[in-house]
Each structure stands twice: as C-alpha cells, then as structure tokens.
C-alpha cells in the first residue's frame, strides 16, 4: 500500500469532486463538508464512469406521500442507469447487500507531514503550507 497525494484541499470545494488516476485506476475524490471520500470511477452494474454522475440527496419516505430529503449531496447517481450509491461507503441503494462500488481510504494531511514521506506525489506539487488529499492504494 502506498500513499498518493491526489489533490490539494483547496482545489476541491465542499460538494465538489475531482477524478484522479492512481496506479491506473480512475478514482473520484468527493468532498462533503470537510470530509473527503474516494470511489472507483466504474459502476459495478455495467462499468459506466460512476463518479461523473449527478451528486444527489437520499430521498426517502417512511410512508407513501411522506417525502423526506435526507443526506443532501451524499449520494452519487450513475450517469447511465441512475442507480444511486452512497458516496461515503459505495453502497448501492437498490441492492445494498450485493451491489457496491469500491471505496478507497482517503485522508487529509498537512503538507509538512507529507514532506517527511513516504508518499507519492505524481499529480500534485506539495508545499509545506498547504493541506492535501491522500489516497492509500
């Protein structure tokens, strides 16, 4: 496992995303508030670029007609067949026990820590003053 610096925190605003390639894998980096999450950019259904889909909420209704918008901005909807996935876990809504998108371990690290290594910064120039998004893969 290697730690890869994939973005600076400043370049992904809350609600935003960045698609990066690490070890040949496309990974969507999503920011929800101050949390960062990584999902493989490949829908487990038929291989669509999942992370390019619309970022949506989780719409629920405990009873017909009792509509509730929950977890705004925490779901990604596949651009091909509209299956919904939890950005935090990769779990699908339509078949949570058997359909799941691979999620990656994403952390935020201070540039100062990263300078001490070990890490791979193919994508990003690291400076000690900033903070960075790091994927372990």
């Amino acid at each position, binding site marked *: 496992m290697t730690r890869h610096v994939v973005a600076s925190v400043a370049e992904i605003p809350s609600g935003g995303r960045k698609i990066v390639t690490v070890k040949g894998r496309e990974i969507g980096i999503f920011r929800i508030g101050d949390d960062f999450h990584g999902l493989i950019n490949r829908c487990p259904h038929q291989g669509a670029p999942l992370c390019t889909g619309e970022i*949506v909420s989780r*719409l*629920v*209704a*405990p*009873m*017909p*007609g*009792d*509509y*509730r918008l929950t977890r705004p901005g925490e779901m990604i909807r596949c651009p091909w*067949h*509209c*299956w*919904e996935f939890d950005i935090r876990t990769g779990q699908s*809504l*339509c*078949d949570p026990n058997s359909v799941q998108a691979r999620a990656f371990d994403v952390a935020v690290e201070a540039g100062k820590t990263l300078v001490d290594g070990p890490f791979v910064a193919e994508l990003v120039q690291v400076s000690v003053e900033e903070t960075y998004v790091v994927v372990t893969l």
Partner: protein
Amino acid sequence: MVNFPAGRPPPGAIDCDIHPAVPSTRALLPYLDDYWREHILRRGLEQENLEASSYPANAAINGRPDWRLPSGPPGSSLAAMQTHLLDRLRPSYAICNVIHGAQVMLSEDLSAALCRAINNWIRAEWLDRDPRLRASIVVPPHSAELAVEEIERLAHDRRFVQVLLLSMAELPLGRRQNWPIYRAAAEHGLPIGIHAGSSFRHPPSAGGWPSYYLEDYVSQSQGFQASVNSLVSEGVFVKFPDLKVVLIESGVTWLPASLWRLDKTWRGVRAEVPWLEEQPTETVRRHVRLTLQPFDAPPAEPQLKKLLEQLGSDRMLLFSSDYPHWHYDGDDALPSGLPAELMQKICVENPLETYSRLTPADIKETPR
C-alpha cells in the same frame, strides 16, 4: 404421507375459488331493502340477469358439460355443487366468489344495494346451508366509502373471509382513493381478492378494444400486471403491511417476467417511489397470492419446474377448482406436472396462511 391420485387434491384441501351464480335478479328481490326492491321493479331490472361474465353464455369454458343444470346458469344450484364438487373432492372449505353486474354498475348506490343483496343471499342460501362454504364480501368497487360500509356490516361474520374486487376498475387499484377499502380489509384480517374481470370503463387490452373473445380473454393478464404494478408502486403494502392480495383466475406464468421488469426499472427510478425500499419482487412474494385454475401451464413439465423456480416462493399458489368453469375433467382439479411435495402447501398450508379467518382446527375429512 397418504397417497392420493395425481391431479386430485388431498382431502382437507381448501378450494379458494368457486362461483355460485345468482340464478336471476328475481332471486335477489327478497334480499334487497324496500327502496331498492321497488327501484329495481320500476325499472324492470329484475328481467335482466345482470350477469357480468365476460364469457359468451354458451362458451364451453363457462360451464363444464356434466355440470350444466337443467335450468339456470351453471353454478346456481347448491345441491348440484355439492354433488359435483364438495362431496367428491371433499374440501375442508370452499370460498364463494360471486361475479355479478353489481360490481360494474355506474350508479354507486345501485351497485351498493345489489352488493348488499348478493351478500345477504350468499349468506342465507349458501353459507347457512353448507358448513364447508366461505365467501368473499362483494363490494361496490367504485365507491370506497360504500365498500367500507359493506365490509363493516359483514366483518363480524367470520364466514366472510375476503373482500372481492375486479382487476380492471375505473382506476388502477393501488390509487389512494381505494385505500379505505384496504384499511378496512386489513383491520378485519380480510385479504383482498382480485378476480379477473373489468368494469369495462377501459378496454381490457392496453392497446384498445379487441375484436375477438380470444384477445379479450388473454388480455386479462395485462389487467393483473397493471394491478400488481399499481398496488406495489403506490405503496399499498408499505401502508398496510398486513394486507394480503389474492389474484384469482389470473394465470401464473406472466408474473415472473413482469416482476423482472419491475425490479429492473425500479433500480433506476427508485427515488420516484422512495417508500419502496426493497426490490418489488420481495414485496410481491410476501403479499401476493395466486389461485391455480385456470392454470396457464407451459407445454412441457421441465418448463413448469423452471417456472416454479422463477416464482421464487412456494407460498404463493393456492388451490382452486374455479367450479363450475371447465378447466379439468373428472376430479383432477390439480393441473398435471406440479411436484408432489408442493401439494400440501398449495392445497392446505398456503390457503391457511393467506386466509387468517380459516382455522386448521376445523379441517377434518367430511364423510361422503
């Protein structure tokens, strides 16, 4: 386990669909209240038989040749039914489903009055005269308010075990206007029986009015698909988690493919019906049952086996003879090719699980 001849249901089986026929509208006159009796006589409606069968009267399927009566429509004589069916197959119970023009009337009040009369008639002339008989409550389907009144009037009599609707009414069955009916049924432990048939406000085919009886008959399964889709999508089973629905004379083979399509599409449009949190197939397996006759069996037994696998549950099929309609000869009321290990479930266990008002303690072999 006792062996019984193939095709013949085991003693103690529960026949979930038989059709007593109202012999004529005149027969209902004593069971109408004064107002509606006079209304019917003034209009001369007693001269019409108000029969709602979509079969042509002489169609062979409408009555088995050896079950036809010297006078009156097939199924209109209790004594004949006892000879033809009850004393031969010896079911522990048989559930009477009356199909009648009362269920398709445009006037909600006349519809309700005739439904009351039919329920009074079935109680006095059938249920009171043979302890094996049970009945569905016939209701005016286009008025939820009046339908609920009729359910409430009769629910105390536990020989009424179900509420009867037709698959094609004025509105898709799942619509919220109908929910008072489902609420009342669920509260009283009554499944909703959905029988093949139409109020004929719309063509039985989704594409328009058919030219021939063949098309009309085969298109009935579209009505059932629409009913299942509507009940599931509108969230009836989320709202009424104890409700069971029995599709009567629906056939069976169309269901797996219809559910595959429902599941597949739901995955992409789930957010439109957010109350559906599980695959529709799972909901249907829990809440929906189907009577056996007329069974639209595939041509070969291996295909039937495959179909039962696709159905994915051994709890869904309920034995029915569909007396007096002609689907079998002799006493072979069970379609051939069904696995022997399913018989007890289809004939006894599944009906008991579906109809909570039937108690297994009552099941004993009736002496011939």
